[in-house]
Protein backbone atom coordinates (compact mmCIF):
# COMPACT_ATOMS: atom_id res chain seq x y z
CA UNK A 1 0.00 0.00 0.00
CA UNK A 2 1.47 3.40 -0.96
CA UNK A 3 2.34 5.90 1.71
CA UNK A 4 1.04 9.41 1.10
CA UNK A 5 2.20 12.64 2.68
CA UNK A 6 -0.12 15.59 3.24
CA UNK A 7 -0.55 18.68 5.40
CA UNK A 8 -1.79 17.87 8.89
CA UNK A 9 -5.44 18.68 9.45
CA UNK A 10 -7.49 19.39 12.56
CA UNK A 11 -8.59 15.74 12.75
CA UNK A 12 -4.94 14.61 12.86
CA UNK A 13 -4.35 16.63 16.02
CA UNK A 14 -4.77 13.74 18.48
CA UNK A 15 -2.44 11.47 16.51
CA UNK A 16 0.27 14.11 16.09
CA UNK A 17 0.11 14.84 19.82
CA UNK A 18 0.44 11.14 20.62
CA UNK A 19 3.43 10.70 18.31
CA UNK A 20 5.09 13.87 19.64
CA UNK A 21 4.77 12.58 23.21
CA UNK A 22 6.38 9.28 22.12
CA UNK A 23 9.21 11.21 20.49
CA UNK A 24 9.90 13.31 23.57
CA UNK A 25 9.79 10.21 25.76
CA UNK A 26 12.24 8.50 23.43
CA UNK A 27 14.77 11.20 24.28
CA UNK A 28 14.60 10.14 27.92
CA UNK A 29 16.89 7.30 26.89
CA UNK A 30 19.78 9.61 26.29
CA UNK A 31 20.23 11.84 29.31
CA UNK A 32 18.52 12.74 32.59
CA UNK A 33 18.20 16.27 31.24
CA UNK A 34 15.74 14.84 28.73
CA UNK A 35 13.40 13.60 31.47
CA UNK A 36 9.96 14.67 30.28
CA UNK A 37 7.83 16.91 32.49
CA UNK A 38 4.95 15.52 34.53
CA UNK A 39 2.45 17.39 32.35
CA UNK A 40 4.06 16.28 29.09
CA UNK A 41 0.75 15.47 27.41
CA UNK A 42 -0.72 18.90 28.13
CA UNK A 43 2.33 20.85 27.00
CA UNK A 44 2.63 18.79 23.83
CA UNK A 45 -1.05 19.41 23.16
CA UNK A 46 -0.53 23.16 23.44
CA UNK A 47 2.64 22.96 21.37
CA UNK A 48 0.96 21.09 18.53
CA UNK A 49 -2.26 23.12 18.62
CA UNK A 50 -0.46 26.44 18.44
CA UNK A 51 1.87 25.11 15.70
CA UNK A 52 -1.14 24.31 13.52
CA UNK A 53 -2.09 27.94 13.27
CA UNK A 54 1.41 29.37 12.78
CA UNK A 55 2.55 30.78 9.43
CA UNK A 56 6.16 29.72 9.98
CA UNK A 57 5.45 26.10 10.99
CA UNK A 58 4.90 23.18 8.63
CA UNK A 59 3.37 19.93 9.91
CA UNK A 60 3.05 17.07 7.47
CA UNK A 61 1.74 13.57 8.17
CA UNK A 62 2.55 10.27 6.44
CA UNK A 63 -0.48 8.11 5.99
CA UNK A 64 -1.21 4.52 5.13
CA UNK A 65 -4.83 4.00 6.15
CA UNK A 66 -3.85 5.67 9.40
CA UNK A 67 -1.21 8.26 10.31
CA UNK A 68 2.11 6.41 10.62
CA UNK A 69 4.47 9.35 11.05
CA UNK A 70 4.85 13.10 10.95
CA UNK A 71 7.33 15.90 10.52
CA UNK A 72 7.29 19.39 12.08
CA UNK A 73 9.43 22.06 10.47
CA UNK A 74 9.85 25.56 11.89
CA UNK A 75 11.09 28.38 9.69
CA UNK A 76 13.50 30.66 11.54
CA UNK A 77 15.48 33.67 10.39
CA UNK A 78 19.29 33.61 10.61
CA UNK A 79 20.52 36.93 11.96
CA UNK A 80 24.14 36.89 10.85
CA UNK A 81 24.51 34.47 7.98
CA UNK A 82 23.49 33.70 4.43
CA UNK A 83 21.12 32.24 3.56
CA UNK A 84 18.98 34.28 5.91
CA UNK A 85 16.25 31.70 6.45
CA UNK A 86 16.37 28.11 7.72
CA UNK A 87 13.76 25.37 8.06
CA UNK A 88 14.43 23.53 11.31
CA UNK A 89 13.11 19.97 11.59
CA UNK A 90 12.16 20.07 15.27
CA UNK A 91 10.25 16.79 15.28
CA UNK A 92 10.25 13.71 13.07
CA UNK A 93 8.68 10.43 14.14
CA UNK A 94 7.64 7.22 12.40
CA UNK A 95 5.88 4.42 14.30
CA UNK A 96 7.97 1.24 14.66
CA UNK A 97 6.16 -1.08 12.19
CA UNK A 98 6.66 1.50 9.44
CA UNK A 99 10.36 2.13 10.06
CA UNK A 100 13.04 1.09 7.57
CA UNK A 101 10.56 1.56 4.73
CA UNK A 102 11.69 5.01 3.68
CA UNK A 103 8.87 6.90 5.41
CA UNK A 104 11.33 9.28 7.11
CA UNK A 105 12.90 10.16 3.79
CA UNK A 106 9.50 10.72 2.18
CA UNK A 107 8.60 13.09 5.02
CA UNK A 108 11.88 14.99 4.78
CA UNK A 109 11.63 15.29 1.00
CA UNK A 110 8.09 16.65 1.29
CA UNK A 111 9.15 19.08 4.02
CA UNK A 112 12.01 20.34 1.88
CA UNK A 113 9.70 20.80 -1.12
CA UNK A 114 7.41 22.87 1.07
CA UNK A 115 10.37 24.95 2.31
CA UNK A 116 11.55 25.64 -1.23
CA UNK A 117 8.07 26.72 -2.28
CA UNK A 118 8.31 29.29 0.50
CA UNK A 119 11.73 30.46 -0.63
CA UNK A 120 13.70 28.68 2.14
CA UNK A 121 16.80 26.91 0.89
CA UNK A 122 18.46 25.67 4.08
CA UNK A 123 17.17 22.75 6.16
CA UNK A 124 18.43 21.66 9.56
CA UNK A 125 17.46 19.14 12.22
CA UNK A 126 17.58 19.26 16.02
CA UNK A 127 18.00 16.06 18.06
CA UNK A 128 20.16 14.69 20.88
CA UNK A 129 23.69 13.87 19.68
CA UNK A 130 23.53 10.50 21.47
CA UNK A 131 20.77 9.41 19.13
CA UNK A 132 23.06 7.41 16.84
CA UNK A 133 20.19 6.25 14.67
CA UNK A 134 19.25 9.89 13.92
CA UNK A 135 22.88 10.86 13.34
CA UNK A 136 23.22 8.09 10.75
CA UNK A 137 19.86 8.91 9.19
CA UNK A 138 20.53 12.61 8.68
CA UNK A 139 24.02 11.89 7.38
CA UNK A 140 22.47 9.55 4.82
CA UNK A 141 20.03 12.31 3.92
CA UNK A 142 22.99 14.62 3.18
CA UNK A 143 22.88 16.75 6.35
CA UNK A 144 26.07 17.73 8.19
CA UNK A 145 26.73 19.09 11.71
CA UNK A 146 26.96 22.88 11.74
CA UNK A 147 26.15 23.84 15.32
CA UNK A 148 27.03 22.42 18.72
CA UNK A 149 24.84 23.13 21.72
CA UNK A 150 26.54 22.29 25.01
CA UNK A 151 24.71 22.00 28.31
CA UNK A 152 25.77 22.24 31.93
CA UNK A 153 23.67 22.20 35.07
CA UNK A 154 24.55 25.19 37.21
Amino acid at each position, binding site marked *: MPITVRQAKREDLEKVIELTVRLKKLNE*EFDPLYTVRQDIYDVVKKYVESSMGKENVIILVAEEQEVVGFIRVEIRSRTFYEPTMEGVITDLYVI*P*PFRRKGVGKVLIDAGIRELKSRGVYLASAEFPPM*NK*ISVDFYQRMGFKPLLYTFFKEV
Partner: protein
Amino acid sequence: MNEGWYEISLKKHRKYGGKIEVLPKVPITSLKDFAIWYTPGVAEPSRSISKDPDLSFELTSRWNTIAVVTDGTRVLGLGNIGPEASYPVMEGKSMIFKYLGGVDAVPVPLRVKSADELVETVKRLEPAFGGINLEDIESPKCFFVLEKLRNEMQIPVWHDDQQGTATAILAGLINALKVVGKKINDITVALIGAGAANIAAARLLIRAEVNPGNMIMVDKAGILHAYREDMDKMMFENKWKYDLALQTNSENRTGGIEDAMRGVDVVIATSTPGPGIIKKEWVSQMNKDPIVFALANPVPEIWPQEAKEGGAKVVATGRSDFPNQVNNSLVFPAVFRGVLDVRARTITDDMAVAAAKGLASYAEEKGLSADYILPTMEETGAYIKTAVAVAQKAIELGLARIRRSQEELEMMAAKSITSAKAKYEALTKSGLIEV
Protein backbone atom coordinates in the same frame (compact mmCIF):
# COMPACT_ATOMS: atom_id res chain seq x y z
CA MET B 1 19.38 -28.65 44.56
CA ASN B 2 20.82 -30.36 47.62
CA GLU B 3 23.10 -28.07 49.72
CA GLY B 4 25.51 -31.00 49.88
CA TRP B 5 26.52 -30.57 46.24
CA TYR B 6 28.06 -27.20 46.95
CA GLU B 7 30.24 -28.50 49.80
CA ILE B 8 31.34 -31.56 47.85
CA SER B 9 32.13 -29.42 44.83
CA LEU B 10 34.26 -26.98 46.79
CA LYS B 11 36.16 -29.81 48.48
CA LYS B 12 36.85 -31.60 45.19
CA HIS B 13 37.94 -28.45 43.39
CA ARG B 14 40.42 -27.84 46.17
CA LYS B 15 41.65 -31.43 46.15
CA TYR B 16 42.37 -31.57 42.40
CA GLY B 17 43.33 -27.91 41.99
CA GLY B 18 40.88 -27.37 39.13
CA LYS B 19 39.69 -29.87 36.55
CA ILE B 20 41.81 -29.98 33.41
CA GLU B 21 45.46 -30.15 32.38
CA VAL B 22 47.54 -30.14 29.20
CA LEU B 23 49.34 -33.35 28.18
CA PRO B 24 51.66 -34.12 25.26
CA LYS B 25 50.14 -36.40 22.61
CA VAL B 26 53.35 -37.25 20.71
CA PRO B 27 55.94 -39.94 21.47
CA ILE B 28 58.78 -38.70 23.66
CA THR B 29 61.05 -41.71 24.02
CA SER B 30 64.00 -39.69 25.20
CA LEU B 31 64.77 -36.05 25.73
CA LYS B 32 66.52 -36.13 22.36
CA ASP B 33 63.07 -36.09 20.81
CA PHE B 34 62.83 -32.47 21.90
CA ALA B 35 65.02 -31.71 18.90
CA ILE B 36 62.05 -32.75 16.78
CA TRP B 37 59.22 -31.29 18.80
CA TYR B 38 61.14 -28.19 19.83
CA THR B 39 64.36 -26.54 18.66
CA PRO B 40 66.00 -26.87 16.28
CA GLY B 41 63.49 -29.01 14.34
CA VAL B 42 60.44 -26.93 15.17
CA ALA B 43 61.84 -24.08 13.05
CA GLU B 44 60.73 -25.90 9.90
CA PRO B 45 57.01 -26.07 10.75
CA SER B 46 57.27 -22.41 11.75
CA ARG B 47 58.86 -21.48 8.43
CA SER B 48 56.13 -23.36 6.56
CA ILE B 49 53.35 -21.65 8.51
CA SER B 50 54.90 -18.25 7.96
CA LYS B 51 54.49 -18.83 4.21
CA ASP B 52 50.93 -20.13 4.58
CA PRO B 53 49.23 -19.30 7.90
CA ASP B 54 46.45 -21.82 7.20
CA LEU B 55 49.08 -24.55 7.68
CA SER B 56 48.76 -23.77 11.39
CA PHE B 57 45.64 -25.93 11.21
CA GLU B 58 47.74 -28.88 10.01
CA LEU B 59 51.03 -28.52 11.84
CA THR B 60 49.84 -27.37 15.27
CA SER B 61 47.14 -28.21 17.77
CA ARG B 62 45.26 -25.09 16.68
CA TRP B 63 42.87 -27.17 14.58
CA ASN B 64 41.47 -28.88 17.65
CA THR B 65 41.81 -26.09 20.24
CA ILE B 66 39.19 -23.52 21.18
CA ALA B 67 38.94 -20.77 23.78
CA VAL B 68 36.07 -20.68 26.25
CA VAL B 69 35.77 -16.93 26.66
CA THR B 70 33.79 -14.86 29.14
CA ASP B 71 33.82 -11.41 30.68
CA GLY B 72 32.12 -12.84 33.76
CA THR B 73 29.11 -10.52 33.54
CA ARG B 74 26.34 -13.12 33.76
CA VAL B 75 27.67 -16.30 35.26
CA LEU B 76 25.07 -19.05 35.84
CA GLY B 77 22.36 -17.49 38.00
CA LEU B 78 25.01 -15.62 39.98
CA GLY B 79 25.12 -12.47 37.87
CA ASN B 80 28.15 -10.24 37.35
CA ILE B 81 30.71 -11.96 39.56
CA GLY B 82 33.80 -11.05 37.58
CA PRO B 83 36.27 -12.96 35.42
CA GLU B 84 38.21 -14.81 38.15
CA ALA B 85 35.02 -16.14 39.71
CA SER B 86 33.84 -17.39 36.33
CA TYR B 87 36.94 -19.56 35.90
CA PRO B 88 35.47 -22.71 37.54
CA VAL B 89 32.53 -22.53 35.14
CA MET B 90 34.71 -22.00 32.05
CA GLU B 91 36.98 -24.82 33.18
CA GLY B 92 33.98 -27.11 33.66
CA LYS B 93 32.85 -26.28 30.16
CA SER B 94 36.32 -27.00 28.83
CA MET B 95 36.26 -30.37 30.57
CA ILE B 96 32.93 -31.26 28.94
CA PHE B 97 34.23 -30.13 25.55
CA LYS B 98 37.04 -32.66 25.85
CA TYR B 99 35.06 -35.47 27.41
CA LEU B 100 32.05 -35.36 25.09
CA GLY B 101 33.54 -33.86 21.94
CA GLY B 102 37.27 -34.58 22.02
CA VAL B 103 37.80 -30.82 21.74
CA ASP B 104 40.76 -29.21 23.53
CA ALA B 105 39.24 -26.17 25.22
CA VAL B 106 41.05 -23.53 27.25
CA PRO B 107 39.31 -21.33 29.83
CA VAL B 108 39.85 -17.64 28.98
CA PRO B 109 38.08 -15.30 31.42
CA LEU B 110 38.88 -11.73 30.41
CA ARG B 111 39.10 -8.50 32.36
CA VAL B 112 37.44 -6.05 30.00
CA LYS B 113 35.39 -2.91 30.61
CA SER B 114 33.18 -2.67 27.56
CA ALA B 115 31.66 -4.71 24.77
CA ASP B 116 34.09 -3.13 22.30
CA GLU B 117 37.05 -4.06 24.46
CA LEU B 118 35.78 -7.63 24.67
CA VAL B 119 35.41 -7.78 20.89
CA GLU B 120 38.91 -6.35 20.33
CA THR B 121 40.51 -8.76 22.79
CA VAL B 122 38.83 -11.86 21.37
CA LYS B 123 39.81 -10.85 17.84
CA ARG B 124 43.45 -10.79 18.92
CA LEU B 125 43.18 -14.39 20.14
CA GLU B 126 42.48 -15.65 16.62
CA PRO B 127 45.97 -17.03 15.76
CA ALA B 128 45.93 -19.28 18.83
CA PHE B 129 42.63 -21.04 18.28
CA GLY B 130 40.48 -22.96 15.83
CA GLY B 131 37.29 -21.59 17.38
CA ILE B 132 35.80 -19.41 20.10
CA ASN B 133 33.07 -20.43 22.51
CA LEU B 134 31.58 -17.40 24.24
CA GLU B 135 29.95 -17.98 27.56
CA ASP B 136 28.05 -16.20 30.33
CA ILE B 137 28.04 -12.70 28.83
CA GLU B 138 25.12 -10.49 29.84
CA SER B 139 22.25 -9.73 27.44
CA PRO B 140 21.92 -7.68 25.21
CA LYS B 141 25.72 -7.22 25.09
CA CYS B 142 26.08 -10.87 24.05
CA PHE B 143 24.12 -10.29 20.81
CA PHE B 144 26.36 -7.43 19.79
CA VAL B 145 29.55 -9.32 20.65
CA LEU B 146 28.53 -12.47 18.78
CA GLU B 147 27.35 -10.58 15.71
CA LYS B 148 30.53 -8.53 15.53
CA LEU B 149 32.93 -11.44 16.12
CA ARG B 150 31.10 -13.71 13.71
CA ASN B 151 31.50 -11.08 11.01
CA GLU B 152 35.08 -10.18 11.71
CA MET B 153 36.81 -13.46 12.59
CA GLN B 154 37.97 -16.23 10.29
CA ILE B 155 37.34 -18.97 12.85
CA PRO B 156 33.97 -20.14 14.18
CA VAL B 157 32.49 -18.09 17.02
CA TRP B 158 29.63 -19.51 19.03
CA HIS B 159 27.77 -18.11 22.02
CA ASP B 160 26.53 -21.16 23.81
CA ASP B 161 23.93 -19.46 26.02
CA GLN B 162 22.24 -18.28 22.85
CA GLN B 163 22.96 -20.82 20.16
CA GLY B 164 23.60 -23.97 22.16
CA THR B 165 20.30 -23.71 23.96
CA ALA B 166 18.46 -22.56 20.82
CA THR B 167 19.80 -25.50 18.82
CA ALA B 168 18.78 -27.98 21.51
CA ILE B 169 15.33 -26.36 21.62
CA LEU B 170 14.93 -26.65 17.85
CA ALA B 171 16.05 -30.29 17.86
CA GLY B 172 13.54 -31.09 20.60
CA LEU B 173 10.80 -29.17 18.82
CA ILE B 174 11.36 -30.96 15.50
CA ASN B 175 10.80 -34.31 17.21
CA ALA B 176 8.00 -33.16 19.51
CA LEU B 177 6.10 -32.03 16.41
CA LYS B 178 6.60 -35.48 14.87
CA VAL B 179 5.16 -37.06 18.03
CA VAL B 180 1.98 -34.95 17.80
CA GLY B 181 1.84 -34.96 13.99
CA LYS B 182 2.13 -31.21 13.31
CA LYS B 183 4.17 -29.38 10.67
CA ILE B 184 6.74 -26.80 11.68
CA ASN B 185 5.56 -24.20 9.15
CA ASP B 186 1.95 -24.39 10.43
CA ILE B 187 2.51 -24.08 14.15
CA THR B 188 1.89 -21.19 16.51
CA VAL B 189 4.46 -20.73 19.28
CA ALA B 190 4.48 -18.76 22.52
CA LEU B 191 7.98 -17.90 23.71
CA ILE B 192 8.03 -17.02 27.40
CA GLY B 193 11.11 -15.00 28.31
CA ALA B 194 13.15 -12.77 26.01
CA GLY B 195 16.69 -13.32 27.23
CA ALA B 196 19.64 -14.67 25.26
CA ALA B 197 18.24 -18.20 24.90
CA ASN B 198 14.75 -17.32 23.68
CA ILE B 199 15.83 -14.51 21.38
CA ALA B 200 18.29 -16.91 19.76
CA ALA B 201 15.63 -19.64 19.73
CA ALA B 202 13.14 -17.33 18.02
CA ARG B 203 15.68 -16.46 15.34
CA LEU B 204 16.60 -20.10 14.80
CA LEU B 205 12.94 -21.15 14.65
CA ILE B 206 12.36 -18.57 11.92
CA ARG B 207 15.39 -19.96 10.10
CA ALA B 208 13.79 -23.41 10.41
CA GLU B 209 10.62 -22.07 8.78
CA VAL B 210 8.35 -21.31 11.68
CA ASN B 211 6.25 -18.37 10.44
CA PRO B 212 7.46 -15.35 12.47
CA GLY B 213 3.96 -13.87 12.52
CA ASN B 214 2.81 -17.04 14.30
CA MET B 215 5.20 -16.55 17.18
CA ILE B 216 4.26 -14.61 20.29
CA MET B 217 7.05 -13.51 22.58
CA VAL B 218 6.64 -12.42 26.20
CA ASP B 219 9.12 -10.49 28.31
CA LYS B 220 8.80 -9.05 31.81
CA ALA B 221 6.50 -6.29 30.53
CA GLY B 222 4.16 -8.67 28.71
CA ILE B 223 3.57 -9.70 25.09
CA LEU B 224 5.87 -8.04 22.57
CA HIS B 225 4.12 -6.22 19.75
CA ALA B 226 5.02 -3.50 17.31
CA TYR B 227 2.94 -0.83 19.03
CA ARG B 228 4.11 -1.39 22.60
CA GLU B 229 4.92 1.77 24.59
CA ASP B 230 8.56 0.88 25.14
CA MET B 231 9.41 0.12 21.51
CA ASP B 232 11.52 3.27 21.01
CA LYS B 233 13.55 2.53 24.11
CA MET B 234 13.97 -1.07 22.98
CA MET B 235 15.24 0.03 19.58
CA PHE B 236 18.23 1.61 21.28
CA GLU B 237 18.73 -0.85 24.13
CA ASN B 238 18.11 -4.20 22.47
CA LYS B 239 17.65 -4.06 18.73
CA TRP B 240 17.47 -7.87 18.53
CA LYS B 241 14.39 -7.95 20.73
CA TYR B 242 13.01 -4.92 18.88
CA ASP B 243 13.37 -6.74 15.54
CA LEU B 244 11.47 -9.71 16.92
CA ALA B 245 8.74 -7.42 18.30
CA LEU B 246 8.25 -6.14 14.75
CA GLN B 247 8.41 -9.53 13.04
CA THR B 248 6.40 -11.67 15.43
CA ASN B 249 2.80 -11.54 16.64
CA SER B 250 1.14 -10.50 13.39
CA GLU B 251 -2.26 -10.39 15.13
CA ASN B 252 -0.89 -7.78 17.59
CA ARG B 253 -2.00 -9.77 20.59
CA THR B 254 -1.51 -8.03 23.94
CA GLY B 255 -1.42 -9.19 27.56
CA GLY B 256 0.70 -11.58 29.59
CA ILE B 257 1.80 -15.22 29.60
CA GLU B 258 -1.75 -16.57 29.83
CA ASP B 259 -2.85 -14.54 26.81
CA ALA B 260 0.24 -15.54 24.83
CA MET B 261 -0.46 -19.25 25.41
CA ARG B 262 -4.13 -19.19 24.45
CA GLY B 263 -4.72 -21.38 21.39
CA VAL B 264 -1.04 -21.92 20.48
CA ASP B 265 0.51 -25.28 19.63
CA VAL B 266 3.81 -24.86 21.43
CA VAL B 267 5.10 -22.98 24.45
CA ILE B 268 8.85 -22.52 24.94
CA ALA B 269 9.73 -20.98 28.29
CA THR B 270 13.26 -19.92 29.27
CA SER B 271 12.22 -17.37 31.87
CA THR B 272 12.15 -17.47 35.67
CA PRO B 273 12.49 -20.54 37.88
CA GLY B 274 9.06 -21.90 38.79
CA PRO B 275 6.88 -23.57 39.60
CA GLY B 276 3.80 -21.49 38.99
CA ILE B 277 5.17 -19.23 36.24
CA ILE B 278 3.02 -21.27 33.84
CA LYS B 279 -0.29 -22.54 35.20
CA LYS B 280 -1.91 -25.85 34.43
CA GLU B 281 -5.12 -24.06 33.38
CA TRP B 282 -3.19 -22.08 30.76
CA VAL B 283 -1.88 -25.33 29.21
CA SER B 284 -5.52 -26.47 28.99
CA GLN B 285 -6.31 -23.38 26.88
CA MET B 286 -3.66 -24.21 24.29
CA ASN B 287 -4.43 -25.85 20.94
CA LYS B 288 -4.98 -29.64 20.72
CA ASP B 289 -1.95 -31.77 21.72
CA PRO B 290 0.09 -29.02 23.34
CA ILE B 291 3.88 -29.11 23.49
CA VAL B 292 5.37 -27.52 26.61
CA PHE B 293 9.09 -26.78 26.99
CA ALA B 294 9.62 -25.41 30.51
CA LEU B 295 13.36 -24.88 30.58
CA ALA B 296 14.12 -22.67 33.58
CA ASN B 297 16.65 -24.12 36.01
CA PRO B 298 16.78 -25.37 38.67
CA VAL B 299 12.96 -25.48 38.77
CA PRO B 300 10.95 -25.48 35.53
CA GLU B 301 8.22 -22.86 34.99
CA ILE B 302 5.70 -25.68 35.48
CA TRP B 303 6.32 -29.18 36.81
CA PRO B 304 6.02 -31.80 34.03
CA GLN B 305 3.30 -33.63 35.94
CA GLU B 306 1.20 -30.47 36.15
CA ALA B 307 1.70 -29.71 32.47
CA LYS B 308 0.52 -33.24 31.65
CA GLU B 309 -2.53 -32.77 33.86
CA GLY B 310 -3.28 -29.63 31.88
CA GLY B 311 -3.28 -31.75 28.72
CA ALA B 312 0.30 -31.38 27.46
CA LYS B 313 1.24 -34.16 25.04
CA VAL B 314 5.01 -33.62 25.12
CA VAL B 315 6.85 -31.94 27.98
CA ALA B 316 10.54 -31.06 28.08
CA THR B 317 12.60 -29.41 30.82
CA GLY B 318 16.21 -28.45 31.42
CA ARG B 319 16.67 -31.18 34.01
CA SER B 320 18.17 -34.64 33.76
CA ASP B 321 15.78 -36.17 36.30
CA PHE B 322 12.78 -35.80 33.97
CA PRO B 323 12.36 -37.21 30.44
CA ASN B 324 13.31 -34.95 27.50
CA GLN B 325 16.16 -32.84 28.83
CA VAL B 326 16.81 -29.87 26.54
CA ASN B 327 20.50 -29.67 27.24
CA ASN B 328 23.10 -27.61 25.43
CA SER B 329 25.71 -30.21 26.39
CA LEU B 330 24.10 -32.29 23.62
CA VAL B 331 25.00 -29.57 21.17
CA PHE B 332 28.19 -27.60 21.78
CA PRO B 333 30.71 -30.52 21.87
CA ALA B 334 29.26 -31.86 18.62
CA VAL B 335 29.04 -28.50 16.85
CA PHE B 336 32.70 -27.76 17.56
CA ARG B 337 33.71 -31.34 16.69
CA GLY B 338 32.08 -30.79 13.31
CA VAL B 339 33.49 -27.35 12.53
CA LEU B 340 37.00 -28.24 13.72
CA ASP B 341 37.10 -31.38 11.59
CA VAL B 342 36.63 -29.32 8.42
CA ARG B 343 38.48 -26.18 9.70
CA ALA B 344 35.33 -24.13 9.16
CA ARG B 345 35.57 -20.34 9.06
CA THR B 346 32.32 -19.67 10.89
CA ILE B 347 29.11 -21.20 12.25
CA THR B 348 26.09 -19.80 10.44
CA ASP B 349 22.49 -20.11 11.60
CA ASP B 350 21.95 -22.65 8.84
CA MET B 351 24.73 -24.75 10.35
CA ALA B 352 22.96 -24.55 13.72
CA VAL B 353 19.73 -25.69 12.05
CA ALA B 354 21.69 -28.56 10.47
CA ALA B 355 23.02 -29.48 13.93
CA ALA B 356 19.47 -29.49 15.33
CA LYS B 357 18.26 -31.69 12.47
CA GLY B 358 21.21 -34.07 12.94
CA LEU B 359 20.55 -34.37 16.65
CA ALA B 360 16.82 -34.82 16.07
CA SER B 361 17.31 -37.50 13.42
CA TYR B 362 19.48 -39.53 15.79
CA ALA B 363 16.65 -39.70 18.31
CA GLU B 364 14.16 -40.41 15.54
CA GLU B 365 16.14 -43.43 14.37
CA LYS B 366 16.13 -44.76 17.92
CA GLY B 367 12.33 -44.40 18.02
CA LEU B 368 10.45 -41.33 19.17
CA SER B 369 7.87 -41.19 21.93
CA ALA B 370 6.37 -38.48 24.12
CA ASP B 371 9.14 -39.33 26.63
CA TYR B 372 12.00 -39.57 24.13
CA ILE B 373 12.42 -36.59 21.79
CA LEU B 374 16.12 -35.99 22.45
CA PRO B 375 19.10 -38.28 23.02
CA THR B 376 20.92 -38.24 26.35
CA MET B 377 24.56 -37.35 26.98
CA GLU B 378 25.40 -41.07 27.19
CA GLU B 379 24.59 -41.56 23.52
CA THR B 380 27.94 -40.99 21.81
CA GLY B 381 26.38 -41.72 18.43
CA ALA B 382 24.28 -38.56 18.73
CA TYR B 383 27.43 -36.43 18.95
CA ILE B 384 28.98 -38.08 15.92
CA LYS B 385 25.82 -37.67 13.86
CA THR B 386 25.44 -34.02 14.85
CA ALA B 387 29.11 -33.25 14.22
CA VAL B 388 28.91 -34.77 10.75
CA ALA B 389 25.73 -32.79 9.94
CA VAL B 390 27.45 -29.52 10.90
CA ALA B 391 30.63 -30.35 8.98
CA GLN B 392 28.69 -31.31 5.85
CA LYS B 393 26.69 -28.09 6.00
CA ALA B 394 29.92 -26.07 6.30
CA ILE B 395 31.30 -27.84 3.22
CA GLU B 396 28.03 -27.30 1.33
CA LEU B 397 28.04 -23.58 2.16
CA GLY B 398 31.67 -23.18 1.09
CA LEU B 399 32.75 -22.28 4.62
CA ALA B 400 35.09 -25.22 5.22
CA ARG B 401 38.86 -24.97 4.68
CA ILE B 402 38.96 -28.67 3.75
CA ARG B 403 36.48 -31.11 2.25
CA ARG B 404 35.89 -34.58 3.58
CA SER B 405 33.50 -37.39 2.69
CA GLN B 406 30.75 -38.45 5.06
CA GLU B 407 32.66 -41.64 5.92
CA GLU B 408 35.81 -39.68 6.69
CA LEU B 409 33.88 -37.24 8.85
CA GLU B 410 32.19 -40.04 10.76
CA MET B 411 35.54 -41.72 11.37
CA MET B 412 37.24 -38.52 12.46
CA ALA B 413 34.50 -37.53 14.88
CA ALA B 414 34.23 -41.04 16.30
CA LYS B 415 38.00 -41.27 16.75
CA SER B 416 38.32 -37.91 18.50
CA ILE B 417 35.46 -38.58 20.86
CA THR B 418 36.22 -42.19 21.70
CA SER B 419 39.97 -41.63 22.08
CA ALA B 420 39.41 -38.75 24.49
CA LYS B 421 37.28 -41.01 26.64
CA ALA B 422 39.66 -44.01 26.29
CA LYS B 423 42.71 -41.96 27.31
CA TYR B 424 40.86 -40.61 30.27
CA GLU B 425 39.74 -44.07 31.31
CA ALA B 426 43.30 -45.40 31.02
CA LEU B 427 44.54 -42.65 33.34
CA THR B 428 41.81 -43.38 35.83
CA LYS B 429 42.38 -47.13 35.70
CA SER B 430 46.10 -46.80 36.29
CA GLY B 431 45.45 -44.62 39.31
CA LEU B 432 47.13 -41.56 37.77
CA ILE B 433 43.81 -39.83 38.18
CA GLU B 434 42.75 -40.57 41.71
CA VAL B 435 39.08 -41.43 41.98
